[in-house]
């Protein structure tokens, strides 16, 4: 939450008015402690102050002060994307990250950028599948990659649904090989410029 924004605080027992989705009308609500579910079924925000319908006891409204509790639950329930790749692929990522002005800590952003581009179909998944047939794709998968973020899990699932590849590790390998071609081999100006801007903003 921004430091500039004031937050009006409500207390347990305070009353207000809100639309009740169960009663299908505007009702009086009383702020109480409730467990409120996330719509994707991934978790529940426990013991949070919420406006409860005085008529049917449904939770109708969440005051803005409860947003940090929601964010904390969301961050715990978002699954990281994890996979194992050969050690030379980590070197590719570090070199590519350096090429666009980022350090080793920019590597996750670099991979997430490419996965997102694949999910958006800006990068051909067929091309990535072809790269996985090359010699550079081989090697014992000894290094672990873990990516966290709001959309990376959904992006990987979307890419999986479009490709014949079914494991996250294969998708990560394909993405890294594509990064190798674009950034280190062909030095694709458009991709490098886009990543340079992101890397600069992340510094």
């Amino acid at each position, binding site marked *: *939450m*921004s430091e*500039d*924004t*004031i*937050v*009006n605080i409500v207390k347990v027992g305070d009353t*207000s*008015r*809100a*639309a009740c*989705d*169960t009663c*299908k*009308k*505007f009702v009086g609500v009383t702020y109480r402690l409730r467990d*409120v*579910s*996330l*719509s*994707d079924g*991934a978790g529940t*925000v426990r013991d949070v102050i*919420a*406006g409860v319908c005085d008529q049917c006891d*449904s*939770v*109708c*409204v*969440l*005051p*803005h002060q409860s*947003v*940090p509790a*929601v*964010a904390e639950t*969301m961050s715990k329930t978002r699954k990281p994307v994890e996979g194992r790749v050969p050690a030379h692929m980590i070197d590719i990522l570090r070199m590519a990250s350096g090429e666009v002005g980022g350090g080793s800590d920019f590597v996750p952003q670099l991979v997430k950028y490419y996965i997102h581009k694949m999910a958006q179909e800006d990068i051909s998944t067929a091309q990535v599948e072809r790269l996985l047939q090359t010699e550079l794709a081989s090697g014992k998968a000894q290094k672990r990659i873990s990516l966290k973020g*709001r959309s990376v899990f959904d992006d990987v699932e979307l890419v999986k649904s479009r490709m014949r590849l079914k494991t996250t590790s294969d998708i990560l390998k394909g993405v890294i090989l594509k990064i190798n071609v674009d950034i280190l081999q062909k030095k694709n100006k458009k991709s490098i410029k886009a990543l340079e801007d992101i890397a600069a903003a992340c510094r």
Partner: protein
Amino acid sequence: MGFRDAKRQLIECLSDGRIDHELERSEIDVKNLLVTGYVSADEVAEVIRRCRGNEYACSPHHFDETIDVHIVKTTHGGTSWYIKWYYLDPNVMFISVHE
């Protein structure tokens, strides 16, 4: 209420922290970027500040037609935004803040 008044009222509420989030089916919409904390009230205010009248629509609330529900569909920072709210004195009640 017209677009300019709705916009001014919303920005005031965001600035003062007079913000509530309507829950459909008593659940927190994980795609709502404001209630999940992915964007701040200031960021939403900035999107609203820059939007234009042709990106705005208004319709009555389906539980109470005297309440105007305001909708903005706009592009900001290369992202498409869909923001839906109404004013329930003294707070703004957000229904959607989606990309």
